[in-house]
């Protein structure tokens, strides 16, 4: 009989199983509750944190400003061209996940996945309602529906608050002032939250999620997974059946002699491990795709073992294959393995690249391109002018005024479209949207313009402190002489 079935066929909660898993207390339940509480707090509180960026900018610490195409993250502001940094973060996330899975199995699934966290929360609500208003009563069902839908709406609004000003958004939503997209987003998220956490529950993990399918490729013989210690659990039997002698006397001789022992193993087939499982599987069938590695069956079994006076750990986090090893001793986890080291290096590379990229982000972007059409304009006093399109966007805390001058063309004057006369250095006020788009005219001094093409450098400085913001290399055309 195969002890490990990685690609087991899984069926959703069988009719005989419980619609809501039973409650359980223990070590992993506590970890799960604490992790869920931290994550939910993080999720709901983050949009409300304020961060002062000055009068022109939003004061929300974390804000995805989609219309403005920018992301505010505390003191940082990201623009679409910073996407490679996000790629680095995603790579870090992916290899972090691979590494965690390699070490300790599906801890992501069991403790931190939003599906797990929300489903767990919704299970708690269902159990609470049943305890308060009785099982399968109308009142209990109505209470469940109200609380769950309310929570789904709160989740949706919480999500949308990352994309809108959290302080005014809920009010705008109620008064009908919010944009249509906000209502659609909140509607869709309410529906999906309710559908996934209240209705589909473990079906998402069993049938929709691709992650369980990856685990076979990520786990190895040193990964911790939830294991049922078959060697001491089998054969299962009622509590009153006497225990197998091998379990009480570990002498090898006796073990040999007692192969015909009619006694039972440590498992008394109480079904607690099945009844507390959020995906409704039977861990005693071995490692399987439906196991999200949350450890609740361990809590349940340890409790039962304590009650019948047997050592804990019939179900425990252990390496695959330990279920027939025949030892009460937990093997030590090998953290340093080629695979984990590789993941660690890749994580460090991704992290380093992201940090490096973030530190090197340009705060001022300047585009100066020659206007298409003709390379130069002949002016009536004999001088030549070159026209450029000038675009500037910045994300500095303050930048009220810029000064621009050209190098490499002595005596040249500059002006923008709305000015009549040119100057050697031209000043321009930066509007509140922190973007400038204008025509820049550079006129060479009469009779001093270049013949043909010459390279020039246009220097943009902060008018307030003279700091150079950007230097753009371009060229200036004059008539061939």
């Amino acid at each position, binding site marked *: 009989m195969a002890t490990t079935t990685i690609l087991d066929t899984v069926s959703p909660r069988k009719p005989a199983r419980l619609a809501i898993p039973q409650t359980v207390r223990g070590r992993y339940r506590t970890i799960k509750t604490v992790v869920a509480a931290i994550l939910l707090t993080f999720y709901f509180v983050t949009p409300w944190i304020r961060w002062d960026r000055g009068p022109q900018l939003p004061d929300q610490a974390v804000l995805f400003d989609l219309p403005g195409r920018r992301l505010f993250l505390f003191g940082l502001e990201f623009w679409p061209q910073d996407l490679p940094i996000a790629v680095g973060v995603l790579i870090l996330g992916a290899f972090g996940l691979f590494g965690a899975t390699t070490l300790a199995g599906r801890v992501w699934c069991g403790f931190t996945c939003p599906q797990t966290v929300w489903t767990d929360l919704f299970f708690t609500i269902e159990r609470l309602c049943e305890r308060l208003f009785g099982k399968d009563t109308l009142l209990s069902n109505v209470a469940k529906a109200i609380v769950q839908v309310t929570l789904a709406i709160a989740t949706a609004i919480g999500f949308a608050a990352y994309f809108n000003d959290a302080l005014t958004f809920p009010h705008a939503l109620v008064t009908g002032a919010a944009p249509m997209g906000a209502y659609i987003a909140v509607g869709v998220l309410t529906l999906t939250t309710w559908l996934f956490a209240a209705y589909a529950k473990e079906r998402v993990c069993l049938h929709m999620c691709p992650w369980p399918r990856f685990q076979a490729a990520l786990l190895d013989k040193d990964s911790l997974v939830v294991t049922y210690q078959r060697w001491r659990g089998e054969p299962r039997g009622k509590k009153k059946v006497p225990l197998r002698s091998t379990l009480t006397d570990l002498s090898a001789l006796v073990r040999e002699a007692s192969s015909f022992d009619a006694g039972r193993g440590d498992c008394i087939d109480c079904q607690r491990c099945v009844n507390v499982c959020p995906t409704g599987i039977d861990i005693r069938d071995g490692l399987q795709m439906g196991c999200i590695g949350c450890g609740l069956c361990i809590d349940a079994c340890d409790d039962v073992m304590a009650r019948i006076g047997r050592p804990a750990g019939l179900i425990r986090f252990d390496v695959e294959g330990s279920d027939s090893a025949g030892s009460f001793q937990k093997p030590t986890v090998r953290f340093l393995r080629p695979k984990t080291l590789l993941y660690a290096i890749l994580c460090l590379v991704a992290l380093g690249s992201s940090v490096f990229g973030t530190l090197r982000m340009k705060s001022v972007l300047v585009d100066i391109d020659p206007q*298409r*059409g003709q390379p130069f*304009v002949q*002016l*009536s*006093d004999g001088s030549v002018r070159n*026209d450029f399109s000038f675009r500037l966007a910045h994300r500095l805390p303050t930048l009220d005024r810029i000064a621009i001058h050209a190098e490499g063309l002595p005596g040249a004057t500059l002006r923008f479209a709305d000015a*009549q006369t040119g100057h050697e250095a031209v000043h321009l006020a930066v509007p509140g949207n922190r973007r400038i788009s204008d025509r820049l*005219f550079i006129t060479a001094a009469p009779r001093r313009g270049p013949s043909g093409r010459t390279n020039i450098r246009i220097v943009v400085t902060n008018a307030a402190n003279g700091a150079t913001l950007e230097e753009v290399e371009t060229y200036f055309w004059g008539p061939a002489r």
Partner: protein
Amino acid sequence: MSVQERDPLTGQVTTGHEWDGIKELRTPIPNWWLITFIVTWVLSIGYLVLYPSFATTKSYAPGILGWSSRNDLSEATQQARDMQSAWRNQILATPLEQIEDNEELRRFAVAGGVAAFNENCAACHGVGAVGQIGQFPSLIDDDWLWGGTITDIHTTIRHGIRTASDDARASEMPAFGDVMTGEEIVATADYVLSLSDRSLDAMRASMPGAALFADNCESCHGAGGEGNREFGAPRLNDAIWLYGGTRDAVIRQITQPKMGQMPTWESRLDEGTIRMLAVYVHTLGGGEK
């Protein structure tokens, strides 16, 4: 129909057809396929009735919904116009000289002006209004035949140059080939070219063309060749020569002058578009206050 017969090997019913001892199994297309096929036919009849579908001898069957892609387009265009109407009204209500002072209004006018320019003006004045030497004036330099303030530009666009319109800008330079001798024309041309050369200032008055210029050209082009925008008489003392600044080109222009024409846009474009065009041209680099 022949008697139903089963193929012994597969157990499937045969069609009863047989060729050279080979029998055909009855494997009809699946029902879902057949039903889908029939449904598509039914739907196609619906389309035939509802939408324009087939040509008639004179026209076409419009379908009972009366839908047409042309109507869709004009509706969409009208919608876009309605959305812009607030801006357009503001452009019509704002005095011409003040449109550029309003940053948002200026941006709207320039955006609309670019589109209108590319559609109507770029054919002659070129994309980006750079003009064509010897043909059409550049609109981005600082030299204007008829004036470079926004009001001047607006008037020029609205009424055109040398058209049949009563308000059009009009003037005519005589063809001096008919009244002057060849030597006189050459002398005049040399004098004209000297106007833009400061090094000749001292000796210019003694040039043979000086008297000819004073008699024939000064009344329009000015004593120093400053030009006169009243008549669209170009400056002759600058570096910009619409019809060429070589000696040959100037001689040709005196002998048999070219005079540009520009259509009256009043009758083709609405006032809002003309105003937007004026703003766009005015902001291209040569606009005068």
